[in-house]
């Protein structure tokens, strides 16, 4: 697969602050050695790797019931087992994944299978698990509900004792909020002007505008794990975290420690994708056990506990959408109702209309807790909303490409939820570019000539289909405070410390590249330490595709401050003013005479320079001087992505084969090419997992238990599932974002559009599959074969 980038300079939106020719950005060919070597080899210290041979191991007893109350816990058998050094129960560890007793009470409510009830530290993990199994727990078992639709039925069991309902509904927005001077007064009136309506009621027989997105475990390759050691009254923790500052706060509160006495080191998150954002009870459990046992303790959740109660999950989502369009494709109105165990985003960002109502019903059921996944909940949101638009194109007898171009949000539009300007044409640009790569127009014509929807076949007799999809992605979150510290040493080399966790190997290099560019030095003179909040005060959330944007901004600001001091020293030495100087390749020289220079080492002087910068997400795609953005504010950046896919459907087996899958993703500016390409390709594989291989957690309706809490039955793609040579992922440099050097991150959008396979499936078969995973059995059922 070729590594190509499409560069496009938007005339309306380039931030002039960063238009100088760049020396380092985009020019570093490989990951920087001093961290890449350690990560690639296995030398990078994950939580399980520290204190080899010197630590105790943890076994966890978890509740097998979906809804119960703990009556009693008897740990005596476990305590007398060989090798056992300490035992704790939920009463001592009030962690989020453990039941929370009300103060002074000894009983507590279990609200999903897999909540941890007690834990044991022992000399090896096998003994620890055997001892944990020996803990006797008595429960009062309650009725439960693990199906979202059933939870909404009258008389359904309550998921939480004492609650009055399993759901709550609110209208999130209803635009226009006041009737406009001309045109329909509201969504209902606007819907009446539509020529074609797809509605869950009126189209019940054909396809009913409802989509069901599956529930799945984050399936992190590194299980949740923490190793802790007490040194005097101070606690040292090695654990993966995507929000170190938050983890420190939680641990210190629960242990009764000053935050300054908790040292948290997070070198790697082992493919966390959101799972390491919440509180990290593995560290709390290990800390309490370690305190009792007076030894370092590792707490690693088993794969099953990780897949059930120990970690977070992507929640169910279900959409019921009514969409009305004019004959020419213009959207008359959207009336969307969302149901879910996690919230939707995106719908209002992608499509152009003034009339949109968005109602949301949150539903509580007895399944393990949910948390943000890559794109937060965006993959599911996109799945739940896109099929109805794709279907509308067919209802209007339009090429879906043309329909998408017609209804895509334009740069001048305000976001319907926030009233902020969109400001980018990248959604259309990405669709246009992927259309060229895929050769959509020709393929569409060929497909029609071969019989069109449900009839076109390949020479081998299988059904043949093509699909398209696009989405806007909003990156950012409510917490973008990130402290980055820079130390420019006496030899002029720079070391940056970032307090956030690193999700991927590209983080270090992207930050190093930005710092080198800002300082005017070479990449080999910059080192980056990630995940040691001991030094860097706050790391903020490593989430929302904000790692590059926010950390790079902190690095940029810290480097610019340090360079300012070096420039002042250089100006004194060269008897000039700083505006006459420029910094490049580790030297500060006169613009007028480059032979007059000082090295960075000379410019530092006799004391190392230490400065800090605050990360910020500059936000939106608006042209603005970077200094005018206020740091510490919640903000977001938009980016776009478009996919096209070609599939073959075997009617005998229900198997779907990917013949080709192309994607173009707007990444702003490419800071580090190989890192960007790796993120894009990784997203493609993840989409295959969600759409095709069975990344879906199943619950036993009789017991509420997870049926597939492992890697095989809840399957991520293996190489056999990935048609490596039929995938093309291309970065599109819209270069229109007010972010550091225009880079807006690339982690999230590549995973958004798994629904493109469903759209191709309709094109191939004439059937809509409204569940997210296209298992062969579901395919055969949709085709009426079983």
């Amino acid at each position, binding site marked *: *697969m070729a590594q190509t980038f499409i560069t496009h300079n938007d005339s309306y939106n380039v931030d002039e602050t960063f238009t100088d020719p760049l020396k380092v950005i985009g020019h570093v060919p490989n*990951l920087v050695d001093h961290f*890449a*070597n350690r*990560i*690639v*080899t*296995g030398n990078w*210290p*994950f939580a*399980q*790797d520290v204190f*080899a*041979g010197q630590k105790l191991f943890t076994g966890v007893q978890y509740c097998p019931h979906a809804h119960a109350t703990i009556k009693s816990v008897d740990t005596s058998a476990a305590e*007398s*087992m*060989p*090798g056992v050094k300490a035992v704790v129960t939920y009463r001592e560890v009030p962690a989020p994944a453990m039941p929370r007793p009300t103060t002074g009470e000894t009983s507590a409510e279990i609200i999903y299978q897999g909540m941890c009830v007690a834990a044991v530290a022992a000399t*090896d*993990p*096998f*003994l620890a698990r*055997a001892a944990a199994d020996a803990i006797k727990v008595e429960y009062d078992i309650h009725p439960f509900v693990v199906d979202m639709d059933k939870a909404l039925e009258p008389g359904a069991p309550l998921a939480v004792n004492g609650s009055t309902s399993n759901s709550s509904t609110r209208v999130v927005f209803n635009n226009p909020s006041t009737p406009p001077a001309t045109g329909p007064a509201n969504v209902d009136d606007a819907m009446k002007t539509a020529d074609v309506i797809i509605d869950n009621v009126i189209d019940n027989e054909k396809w009913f505008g409802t989509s069901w997105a599956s529930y799945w475990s984050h*399936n*992190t*390759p*590194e*299980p949740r794990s923490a190793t802790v050691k007490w040194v005097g009254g101070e606690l040292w923790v090695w654990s993966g975290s995507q929000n170190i500052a938050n983890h420190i706060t939680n641990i210190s509160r629960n242990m009764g420690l000053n935050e300054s006495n908790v040292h948290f080191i997070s070198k*790697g*998150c*082992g*493919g*966390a*994708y959101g799972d390491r954002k919440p509180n990290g009870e593995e560290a709390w459990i290990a800390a309490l056990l370690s305190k009792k046992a007076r030894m370092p303790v590792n707490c*690693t959740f*088993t*794969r099953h506990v990780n897949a059930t109660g120990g970690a977070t999950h992507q929640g169910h989502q279900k959409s019921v959408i009514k969409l009305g369009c004019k004959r020419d494709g213009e959207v008359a109105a959207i009336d969307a109702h969302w149901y879910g165990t996690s919230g939707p985003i995106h719908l209002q960002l992608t499509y152009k209309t003034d009339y949109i109502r968005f109602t949301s019903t949150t539903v509580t059921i007895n399944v393990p807790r949910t948390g943000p996944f890559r794109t937060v909940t965006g993959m599911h949101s996109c799945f739940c909303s896109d099929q109805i638009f794709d279907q509308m194109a067919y209802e209007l007898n339009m090429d879906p490409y043309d329909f998408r171009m017609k209804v895509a949000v334009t740069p001048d539009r305000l976001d319907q939820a926030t009233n902020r300007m969109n400001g980018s044409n990248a959604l259309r640009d990405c669709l246009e570019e992927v259309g060229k790569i895929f050769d959509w127009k020709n393929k569409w014509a060929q497909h029609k000539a071969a019989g069109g929807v449900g009839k076109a076949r390949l020479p081998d007799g299988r059904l043949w289909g093509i699909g398209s999809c696009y989405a806007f992605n909003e990156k950012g979150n409510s917490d973008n405070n990130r402290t980055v510290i820079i130390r420019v040493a006496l030899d002029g080399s720079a070391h940056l410390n970032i307090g956030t966790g690193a*999700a*991927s*190997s*590209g983080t270090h290099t992207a930050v190093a590249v930005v710092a080198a560019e800002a300082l005017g030095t070479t990449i080999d003179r910059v080192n980056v330490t990630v995940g040691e909040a001991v030094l860097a005060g706050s790391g903020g959330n490593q989430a929302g595709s904000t790692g590059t944007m926010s950390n790079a901004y902190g690095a940029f600001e810290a480097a610019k401050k340090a360079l300012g001091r070096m420039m002042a020293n250089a100006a004194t030495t060269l008897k000039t003013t700083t505006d006459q100087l420029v910094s490049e390749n580790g030297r500060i020289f006169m613009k007028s005479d480059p032979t007059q220079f000082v090295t960075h080492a000379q410019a530092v002087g006799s004391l190392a320079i230490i400065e800090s910068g605050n990360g910020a997400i500059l936000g939106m795609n608006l042209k603005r001087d970077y200094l005018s953005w206020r740091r510490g504010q919640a903000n977001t950046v938009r980016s776009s992505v478009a996919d096209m896919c070609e599939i073959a459907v075997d009617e005998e087996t229900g198997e779907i084969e990917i013949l080709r899958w192309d994607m173009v993703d707007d990444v702003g500016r490419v800071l580090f090419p*190989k890192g960007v390409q*790796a*993120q894009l*390709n*990784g997203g*493609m*594989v*993840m989409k295959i*997992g969600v759409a095709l291989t069975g990344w879906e957690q199943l619950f036993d309706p009789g017991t509420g238990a997870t049926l597939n809490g*492992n*890697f*095989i039955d809840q399957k*991520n793609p*293996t*190489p*056999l599932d*990935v048609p*490596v040579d039929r*995938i093309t992922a291309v970065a599109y440099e819209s270069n229109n974002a007010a972010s550091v050097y225009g880079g807006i991150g690339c982690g999230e959008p590549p995973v958004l559009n798994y629904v493109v396979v469903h759209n191709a499936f309709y094109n191939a078969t004439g059937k809509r599959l409204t569940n997210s995973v296209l298992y062969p059995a579901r395919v055969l059922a949709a085709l009426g074969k079983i």
Partner: protein
Amino acid sequence: MTEEKKGISRREFLKDASLIVGGAAVGSTMLGTVAVASCNNNNNTTTSVGPSGGGRHSLFKVNGIDHWVEIEPYWSLNFVIREKLGLTFTKMGCDRGECGHCTVLVNDLPIYSCMMLAQDAIDKPIETAEILSPDLTNLDGIAKSFRDNAAFQCGFCTAGWMIATKALLKKNPSPNLDQVREELAGHLCICSGIIEICQTVVKIGQGG
């Protein structure tokens, strides 16, 4: 806590685990049955002799070095390699034969070390990912290619892929893409570097 030593049995160790056959992680139910059935032939409720209780020392030949280790009969090879020898490049992702992160070579064959009892590896030549990178400042061979082609992200799975690649290239020095996909099918990379990894292994075979 009591110091009385009872240990746990080999059967318990394997009871909910599935077993690896060839390269591919498939069909947990069927393979799990195989694992349990094989345990029935060795209904060994061990009275173990603990490391501090004067047990036996066994020879582990790892990366060309002899290590004498006092083991428990229920310990996995993964546990011994990581915790007793301190060779932590080999990871533990699932402890049940599903992910491939724990792969080591035993007699040149890629083995899930979480699924092999340490006592079954005594005296056999074992290679771990450490052997691929003796000098962290100067990578070469498979590790250098994986680095230069960005065939890793979080890095948790990478050592497993790389050591399996060593075995693959020994068997087939110049595999094509489909052979790579087939041979490395027992590995997961959730991040996912699968595209880069497969392309990198093909490249290595072509001398690139």
